[in-house]
């Protein structure tokens, strides 16, 4: 056993020596995480106009985020179609520069992202990076982006914590996780002041915890009473124990969810146990048409938050009324391009829209910066305030967190998703309280 001890000591000594050696070799690092005092991006006129602009990123085309990855890719391709074919490219110094998207498959695995982003930067020489899907992967590749000084646009990293780490070049397109369930609470407060008892039932994972931490704080602010707040582990097979306990708490509204499979399971088992509430809002799962295919009439009246939904009322006219610039395709155009790349039978989910919008925001920022220099683009983002088909874009200059974008709340009504909140984006009235499970079994739809 003696040589084992010697070995452990050796390891520690070797490592400490190595690390100290490195620390000495490196000149004292100058911390520059603060965002620069924004000198207006004025590139010298003789700055070379690039041949083309390449945006690069990894998508999860296989593995646990394969669903979202495929949607993102289609959304990006649709946005690029508009950007290159309709807009002619990005206007730099009077010349239209075409935009390309270079992507690899990260399989939703944390090991692969760093090497693929390194390749995107050094081999493919991309100008701007699109972050991978999910908060974990976004964090994993962030040091690479930061080291190479590339703008790192998050289109699927919702966790608020990404933006609290002091990365300089991170920018977010979508609303952060803490906002996912606040819309439902706002709506209930506005239309039914008597509904006070809220139950939370959600997945025990980083993302859902962030969502419901935000929701809980907000609910208490609004004067709701949180009567149940419990989680279930990933990939549950049977939620009965949790749900029968929740039933006893007699909630008025139920907020829950996590990912696709468990969201479908949650709705199914609420139906089986006949747990009725005035409102059921589930994150992620209901946003996809497959949710309704799977549940049929049981899905009627179920509400879900979305970063975007088909039918949102963000249009050039609405932008004009607000006095904000509109950029990119209209929603109809986006839908048309999406169907061209994805196939006629496909409907974009918000994953497609947020990825497409991220590309548009990058394009607009480059155009405003009139340069592909990262600092210039990052500064341009600070001053960028616009509306796209995805909604408003305005970031917090220090952290890069999205402030302008608003989430919407949709409801399955008669087999269609109808946007019911906020009122200015709504395409229909909320159906409230939602039909009971017994009524739905009789074929009652959530339509008037």
């Amino acid at each position, binding site marked *: 056993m003696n040589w084992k001890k010697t070995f452990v000591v050796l390891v520690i000594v070797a490592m400490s020596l190595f690390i100290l050696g490195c620390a000495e070799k490196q000149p004292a690092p100058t911390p520059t995480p603060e965002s620069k005092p924004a000198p207006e991006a004025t590139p010298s006129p003789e700055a070379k106009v690039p041949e083309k602009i390449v945006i690069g990123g990894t998508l999860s085309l*296989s593995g646990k985020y394969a669903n979202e990855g495929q949607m993102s890719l289609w959304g990006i391709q649709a946005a690029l179609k508009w950007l290159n074919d309709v807009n002619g490219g990005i206007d730099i110094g009077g010349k239209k520069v075409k935009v390309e998207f270079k992507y690899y498959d990260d399989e939703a695995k944390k090991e*692969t992202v760093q090497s693929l982003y390194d390749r995107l930067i050094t081999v493919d020489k991309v100008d701007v990076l699109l972050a991978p899907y999910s908060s974990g992967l976004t964090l994993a590749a962030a040091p690479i982006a930061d080291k190479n000084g590339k703008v790192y646009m998050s289109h699927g990293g919702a966790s608020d914590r990404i933006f609290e780490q002091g990365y300089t070049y991170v920018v977010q397109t979508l609303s952060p996780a803490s906002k996912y369930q606040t819309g439902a609470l706002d709506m209930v407060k506005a239309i039914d002041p008597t509904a006070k008892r809220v139950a939370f039932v959600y997945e025990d994972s980083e993302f859902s915890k962030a969502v419901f931490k935000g929701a809980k704080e907000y609910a208490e602010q609004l004067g709701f009473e949180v009567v149940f707040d419990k989680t279930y582990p990933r990939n549950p097979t049977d939620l009965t124990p949790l749900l029968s306990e929740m039933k006893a708490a007699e909630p008025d509204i139920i907020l829950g969810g996590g990912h696709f499979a468990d969201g479908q399971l949650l709705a199914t088992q609420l139906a089986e146990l006949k747990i009725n509430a005035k409102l059921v809002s589930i994150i992620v799962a209901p946003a996809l048409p497959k949710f309704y295919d799977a549940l049929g009439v049981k899905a009627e009246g179920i509400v879900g938050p979305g970063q975007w939904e088909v039918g949102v009322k963000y249009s050039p006219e609405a932008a004009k009324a607000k006095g904000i610039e509109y950029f990119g395709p209209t929603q109809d155009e986006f839908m048309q391009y999406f169907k061209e790349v994805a196939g006629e039978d496909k409907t974009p989910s918000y994953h497609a829209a947020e990825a497409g919008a991220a590309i548009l925001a990058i394009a607009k920022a480059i155009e405003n910066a009139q340069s592909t220099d990262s600092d210039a683009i990052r500064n341009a983002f600070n001053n960028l305030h616009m509306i796209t088909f995805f909604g408003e874009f305005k970031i917090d200059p220090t952290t890069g967190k999205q402030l302008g974008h608003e989430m919407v709340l949709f409801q399955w009504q008669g087999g269609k998703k109808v946007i019911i909140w906020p009122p200015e984006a709504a395409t229909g009235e909320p159906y409230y309280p939602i039909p009971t499970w017994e009524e739905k079994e009789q074929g009652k739809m959530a339509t008037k």
Partner: protein
Amino acid sequence: MKKYIQPLLPVLTLYIVLLGAGLSIPGLWQPIAFIMFYVVLGQALNMFLGMTGYVDFGYVAFLGLGAYGMALAFSLFTDDGLGSGIIVVGFLMAVIFSILLSMAVGAIALRLRGAYFAIATIGVSEGFKYLIEGARLWGGSEGIIISSQLRDSFGSEMANYLSTFASDILIFAIGILAAILTVYTLHTRAGYALMALREDEDAAKVMGVNVTKYKVMAFGMSAVFAGLIGASAWTLKLTYVFPEDVFNIIYTVEAIVIVMLGGAGTLAGPVVGGLIYGILRYYLATVLPGFQLLVVAPLLVLIVTVFPDGVVGYIKRKLKGSRFSKYVI
């Protein structure tokens, strides 16, 4: 001395080539780090699986605990002014954690044989994950993010340097250390005892070999290396630890694939296996995004059926008796 150096030569040469290529060719550093992760993971598992023939399906728990050791060092001691010493503390914690777990698992599971052992270790790894999540230990399912602590203690440039370069160099160092230790073990009493144990545990016992002692030793050694890998390749490099990610059984399976691909119980085996696996995964992800597994999976099956002893095992058999055989063990 010669008997140690000769078999090390091919492996060390390969490391130097990889290191050189990574440093000199732009854009190759991270891909090589990616491949090295698999190489070293294979080496670490080989110390136990290759030497004893026991399949530890819960091996990822050691990597996970190593990752937590480093992350906890950052979340607990960032304000204590340790400077770069905090990384040493992190590695120490990683080592201590993995040794403790290996002792606990050893006490329960090493008495079991074959598939029972394999599945008991799954129980340990999965059980641990759900303990962390369920008891809200160490941040529960929200895990620990150390990016901001890294940047606060070292400044952003140094933090980036740590995550994108130093952690990779550490992986190389761990790999070299693992190779040296493997050669050394193979030529000591312990190595012969383990060899006997792998062939026939009961016979070895009858011959008076202290089977338990050597099993526990190999297990602990392998666990420590796993902890070090977790601490550097995950926590330092990726700057966050989520329990769902670090206790994912897929890493165990990948490690087994690598050891098997190359040849269990050989020195060069896991290195070759890791190389093949890493390169395949990386290049297919760039060439066939979305379809790479469709190609990797049948290839795996094919290789396994053609070389059941692994590539190095096959070469070793071919070289038996020739003068090159000294270089391949």
